């Protein structure tokens, strides 16, 4: 095992301070901005003409927007997994990963809230949720828990950032002007006194304890949007656990991908070490096995019975119209990553990056498969409706808006990483001083 090198606080600060975009960073950001702009243009068209620009119909009345929503909610759960669960379990090697996962959580939950507004037929009536809200409706539960989770994630990111912002303010000479005003506005009150430190520590502990049940709630309630209906494929008592386990998997996959990219771009090899990949690899494989277990429950148990109402839906997935996507999601999203990650050689950064990408892409298609095929199999036959309602493939407006929202998540992460250190400087210095065995 490699030994963790010990660095002086100056070197750590120097290594971890946010840096200006290089050429690659600029191209990356510009590309994301362009994709967002196309998405925004498509959305303005949709606002003018109505949801008729989508390919949704009276049967598939929820499409790619809702599957994207589920995907974002899922991925945002990682903030609570890495930060809160690891902190409460006192996992010593978590430091370089917490900030990254919190950034992913905040940006994903932001776009989860936005994409659900995109899906509304009358977005201008959003305030009706407050004027005439009915607490009996699972949508209201979702509104409440997602708002709560958004603020908890934001607070967690902010409070853990405070000592780092102090360091950023002190390093004004090196960082130059661009964000110094923002830093001072955010944390000029932070002096790092013992009392402040104590309060901060307590706040983080409280937030970590509170955020775990809320994180379970956001994805459980999101699963209930489906499970509270009668439809084959959704009418399942397994859904809450199935969704939460899938969410932890895709979130951990996203963290692995982000770890790899930040490590390369910011040259953090000494901080995000191979050991971290090794540890995350083990967690990822455990989560993938867990999700696979829930998938077996979700598909094989109904398939054993093949109730008439379920039959069309299940055969459509196993061998019909959706079979290629279904098996792609199972193999790329779970089985192949498991096969890569069970072997120590597979838990090296490059292999892990590939596995992480597979998990995330597989998870996106999985969400599509959860939403769409069920809607194509109503109880009464599809009849006497426009022929195009019998099939669903997203229109270019839907693709543009969905891709725009994905780019938006990456853009927020990029900006956060530009403004704030992706690894907590303060915590890294403390870890190195305390000679933690990592």
């Amino acid at each position: 095992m490699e030994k963790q090198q010990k660095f002086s606080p100056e070197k750590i600060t120097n290594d971890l301070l946010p840096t200006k975009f290089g050429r690659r960073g600029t191209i990356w950001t510009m590309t994301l901005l362009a994709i967002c702009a196309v998405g925004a243009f498509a959305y303005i068209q949709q606002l003018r003409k109505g949801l008729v620009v989508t390919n949704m119909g009276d049967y598939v009345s929820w499409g790619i927007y809702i599957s994207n929503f589920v995907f974002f909610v899922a991925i945002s759960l990682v903030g609570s997994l890495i930060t809160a669960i690891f902190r409460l379990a006192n996992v010593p090697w978590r430091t370089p990963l917490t900030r990254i996962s919190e950034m992913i959580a905040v940006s994903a939950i932001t776009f989860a809230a936005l994409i659900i507004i995109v899906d509304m037929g009358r977005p201008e009536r959003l305030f009706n949720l407050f004027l005439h809200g009915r607490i009996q409706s699972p949508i209201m539960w979702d509104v409440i828990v997602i708002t709560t989770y958004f603020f908890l994630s934001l607070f967690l990111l902010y409070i853990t950032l405070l000592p780092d912002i102090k360091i950023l303010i002190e390093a004004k000479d090196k960082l130059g002007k661009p964000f110094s005003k923002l830093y001072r506005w955010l944390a000029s009150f932070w002096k790092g006194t013992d009392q402040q430190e104590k309060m901060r520590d307590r706040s983080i502990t409280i937030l970590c304890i509170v955020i775990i049940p809320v994180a379970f709630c956001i994805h459980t309630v999101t699963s209930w949007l489906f499970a509270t209906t009668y439809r084959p494929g959704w009418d399942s008592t397994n859904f809450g656990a199935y969704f939460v386990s899938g969410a932890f998997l895709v979130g951990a996959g996203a963290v692995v991908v982000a770890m790899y990219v930040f490590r390369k771009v910011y040259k953090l090899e000494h901080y995000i070490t191979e050991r971290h990949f090794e540890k995350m690899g083990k967690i990822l494989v455990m989560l993938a096995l867990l999700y696979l277990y829930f998938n077996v429950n979700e598909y094989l148990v109904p398939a054993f019975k093949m109730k008439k109402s379920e039959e069309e839906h299940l055969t459509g997935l196993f061998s019909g119209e959706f079979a290629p996507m279904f098996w792609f999601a199972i193999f790329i999203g779970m089985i192949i990553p498991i096969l890569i990650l069970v072997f120590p050689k597979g838990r090296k950064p490059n292999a892990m990056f590939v596995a992480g990408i597979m998990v995330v892409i597989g998870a996106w298609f999985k969400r599509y498969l959860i939403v769409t095929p069920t809607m194509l199999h109503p109880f009464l036959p599809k009849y006497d409706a426009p022929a195009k309602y019998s099939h669903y493939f997203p229109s270019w407006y839907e693709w543009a808006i969905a891709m725009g929202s994905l780019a938006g998540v990456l853009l927020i992460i990029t900006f956060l990483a530009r403004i704030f250190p992706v690894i907590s400087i303060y915590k890294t210095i403390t870890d190195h001083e305390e000679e933690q065995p990592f």
Partner: protein
Amino acid sequence: MDQKKSRREFLAAGLLTTAAVACNSKKSPFTPEDDIKPSGEKIKLLSVDGEVIEVDKAFLKPVPHMPPVSNSEARQGIPGKKFVMVIDLARCKNVKACQASCNHAHHIADAQNWIKVYPMKDAEHTANYWQPTTCMHCDEPPCVKVCPVDATFKRQDGIVLIDSDRCIGCRFCMAACPYSTRVFNWGDPNLPPDIADLHYNAETSVPQKKGTVGKCDFCADMTRMGMLPHCVSACPNGVFSFGDMVEDTVTNGAETFRFSDLIKDKSGYRLMEDLGTKPSVYYLPPVNRNFKFEDGLKKEEPAVKKS
């Protein structure tokens, strides 16, 4: 006694107000309007006293149908009623006059079809039959349960309606409804301006609005006037019977039945009883049928609109 008095006072006040308004407009309500000239063409009418009277055609003015009900009245429904529909599958031959009259009355596009007539076959060796479906107006409506803003609601008379001025277009109700009865206005409904400009009335469901959900409303405006829903009166074969469960009577316009006897004698049932939605629409099984199933196949082209 007290009530009567206040009623009299109310009426008197109302009359005075009317008179005042009439005086203000400098027109007596009883003199013919200046700009109307007698046409000379007389029309015979039956007066309230039972006398036959003659009136010049030019003075005839259409009486406004009924004052439109307010939103809160439309949400409450009619006290002491529980509306119910019975659909006799033995009589249906897919004429689709129900659908045409419904689309016409509610100004909905042909593609939307609140009423559908499904060709059904329950099992491999069982017979084909035609099954018209409306909204089931469930007593445990899954759509109402999930609506986040109370835009779709259940009234005391059993009817489930939609407030298109409140609907946010989340389409959760469409996902929740097991009967596929709800449709969405994906684009602009393209109504003629005189319809589109009307104030939305939940009892007529007119005008449909972009980005909101629509569905069969049991013609709540007609039932308020004591009349039958459009589909019931349009059907030439008497498939649909409509009535009040409290009165225990349903009628298709030509025949009237005791609801409980009809359901008992003909083994009435409801769709997807196992889901526990408790629909208000009952079906009579397709036995001793008036028409062959194949007769309906000829009518597969869309029915001609009737005025």
